[in-house]
């Protein structure tokens, strides 16, 4: 009997230690499903394209299935251990963010933006997580063509930072990118012509940067705040204040890290915004002599040459530009700019043959740079302005060939295809053939999706603004919506369609 009691003792102990453990079981299941989804997510990066596509679908489905059922909705959830509940909330936030990131990578920007926004709305999040989610929302919504929504997210991010005591108490370390949010918000309001918001947020941003600079009198935060303040002046075209800010930052120990770039910027503000040529020369010469082998020195030398040409010292300026072209150490973009600037000056002084040779050389030597993309268009423009229609047509034909070669889906061109597209359209418009330009842009079978969609939008714009054929413009926009649904281009096309049909433009 005694032995039997002894045998039963462990059973009693076991029963005494029992607990419902429902919360722990649910958390474990959530973690297991999250791991499964992350497993597919990780595999996307290492698998081959075909398998990867399947993994993306599997990962999205796995994340969605986690979010579809919230164990915290169960009535018993209120009795669970608070640590378990907090873990489950954290897991759900991670799931949402991971799914939103995945949708973003799959270019499903609208869905990604919605999820990021829901993440922010679902729970009280740590500042860092909330800002990451809002930044994701802003990026997704911008790419989805929802510009107003993107602006709202930037503004909300800005307010979160300003109002968060942890940030001011240095308890939360933020990436530099987040300190740029105030000035980005102001720039977006300016570009959207929302004057009241632009003014209000300009003031908020200015006082924010001043407060950051006062709270952290030195170091990285101080540097970033002062840079933000300078950018704000630049956005608001407050050139004197921007120059003063730049001078102060360059003179301080915190500015030493970017002294070359900041000094070049100061010189360019004096030269091209403030019109203080003497001061510009002094500052740009300092850049060229203090850091002679740095890229900024070549840029400064280019600026000085352009100032010389503009100020009537054509010989000196042209010699400096030629020296830059022949300098093997000069960065390609600077050499290309120098070539283009010299070609334009030669054209202005009626030395067209030499200018034409230079335009063609830019294309040969630096085919992917902006000056090389501008060159064919400038040649067409020259012939049109001089009434040489036959030559203009031949130049246009050659420009078309050059541009289309860059735009082809299989081309190695790594630059901005929208710039090429813009130059192509502009060349036709200059030649007086906007209809042909629109036709060309609208029937681009050989282009990638983004270029094709942008081409339809540009064709619509040419029909609407240059050809003055709103019906054809509307047809282009509808085609864009049909061919590229759920993209930024589709959203822009929808808004433009509404404008053309006289309806009030939709938000975004």
């Amino acid at each position: 009997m005694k032995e039997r009691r002894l045998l039963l003792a462990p059973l009693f102990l076991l029963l005494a230690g029992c607990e419902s453990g429902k919360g722990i079981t649910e958390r474990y299941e959530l973690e297991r499903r999250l791991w499964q989804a992350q497993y597919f997510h990780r595999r996307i990066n290492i698998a081959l394209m075909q398998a990867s596509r399947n993994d993306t679908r599997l990962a999205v489905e796995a994340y969605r299935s986690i979010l579809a059922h919230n164990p915290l909705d169960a009535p018993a959830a209120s009795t669970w251990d608070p640590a378990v509940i907090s873990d489950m909330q954290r897991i759900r936030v991670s799931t949402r963010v991971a799914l939103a990131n995945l949708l973003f990578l799959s270019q499903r920007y609208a869905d990604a933006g919605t999820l990021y926004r829901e993440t922010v709305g679902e729970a009280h999040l740590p500042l860092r997580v909330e800002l990451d989610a809002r930044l994701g929302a802003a990026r997704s919504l911008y790419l989805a063509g929802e510009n107003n929504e993107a602006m709202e997210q930037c503004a909300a991010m800005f307010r979160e930072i300003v109002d968060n005591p942890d940030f001011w108490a240095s308890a939360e370390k933020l990436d530099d990118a987040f300190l740029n949010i105030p000035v980005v918000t102001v720039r977006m309001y300016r570009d959207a012509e929302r004057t009241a918001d632009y003014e209000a947020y300009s003031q908020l941003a200015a006082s924010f940067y001043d407060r950051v600079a006062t709270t952290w009198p030195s170091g990285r935060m101080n540097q970033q705040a002062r840079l933000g303040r300078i950018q704000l002046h630049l956005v608001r075209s407050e050139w004197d204040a921007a120059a003063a800010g730049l001078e102060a930052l360059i003179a301080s120990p915190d500015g030493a890290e970017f002294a070359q770039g900041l000094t070049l910027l100061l010189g360019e503000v004096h030269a091209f915004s403030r019109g203080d040529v003497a001061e510009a020369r002094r500052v740009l010469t300092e850049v060229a002599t203090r850091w002679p082998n740095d890229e900024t020195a070549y840029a400064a030398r280019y600026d000085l040459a352009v100032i010389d040409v503009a100020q009537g010292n054509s010989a000196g300026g042209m010699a400096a530009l030629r020296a830059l072209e022949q300098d093997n150490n000069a960065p390609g973009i600077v050499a290309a700019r120098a070539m283009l600037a010299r070609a334009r000056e030669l054209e202005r002084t009626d030395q067209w043959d030499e200018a034409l040779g230079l335009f063609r050389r830019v294309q040969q030597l630096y085919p992917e740079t902006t000056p090389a993309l501008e060159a064919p268009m400038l040649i067409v423009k020259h012939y049109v302005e001089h009434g040489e229609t036959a030559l203009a047509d031949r130049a246009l034909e050659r420009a078309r060939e050059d541009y289309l070669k860059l735009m082809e889906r299989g081309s190695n061109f790594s630059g901005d295809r929208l710039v090429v597209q813009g130059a192509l359209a502009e060349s036709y418009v200059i030649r007086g053939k906007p209809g042909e330009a629109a036709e060309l842009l609208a029937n681009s079978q050989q282009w990638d999706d983004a270029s094709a969609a942008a081409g339809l939008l540009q064709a619509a714009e040419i029909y609407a603004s240059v050809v003055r054929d709103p019906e054809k413009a509307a047809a282009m926009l509808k085609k864009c919506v049909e061919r590229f649904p759920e993209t930024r281009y589709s959203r822009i096309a929808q808004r433009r369609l509404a404008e053309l049909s006289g309806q009030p433009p939709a938000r975004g």
Partner: protein
Amino acid sequence: MNLSRSVTSYLDALGNARLALTAPSVFVPFAAFGALQCLLLVMLAFFTAEPIAGFMIPAVRALGGEPALHYPMHFVQLPGLYQRVYLPLAATIGFACWSLGIWSMVDHHTVGRSRPRRPFRAALVHVLIVGLVFVGVSWLLGLGLGAVLARVQGPAARVVTFAGLAAVACVQALLIYAPVVLRLRGGSALAAIRSSAQYASRRFVATALVILTILLIHAPVDFLLSQSDRVALRFHPEMLFYLLAGGAVLEMFTAYLLFASIAGLALPEEGGMR
């Protein structure tokens, strides 16, 4: 005894494992312990399953702490978690099952049949003491080996590992005959251990080779389990459960092979056949 005789004895001993083909009942105690291990592993691995969650959650927490309640850390920790249960289990129930297997093997052997039958229950306490000493000494040697390995690196670590493995094989060789002695001669655990050491010293090379064979068969699984975090990340966390369950099934056969071989070495000598 020269080396060729030792190798012949070793091969003959392994050959004794064929006994299970003619008398499958000798395998039953080993299968029973294997099944018990698998059951325990299933309970530990799937502790959140509805019928067992109530008592397994506190058990897993007690064994592995709070991190063991989280996925996938629970599976990463599973080998360590199971080890904590396995050692006392092997020292008691495991050793008892294996000794019962020896009892059965002796009953099927000519030498055993000529000796008086000894009830297993009467020898159980001594079997358990031998089991505790057997597992305890192996465990302590393993701890010492781990401590030394933590201080050395590179080729020296490899030398220490093999030396440690050899030391474990030697110590186990000295103790492994104890269940056979208890069955054939009776007596206390201490007397059985002493006789076991004498047996082993006489047939040391063959005995050590048998034990080394078993240790080497387990080495790949043990190595994979020592890399549990990598296995979980590279494949799937559940893979560790499959490895452990595979290890338990493998042990069912290797334990049988070990004790059948030991019986094969001891019984002919005990009967004056060698």
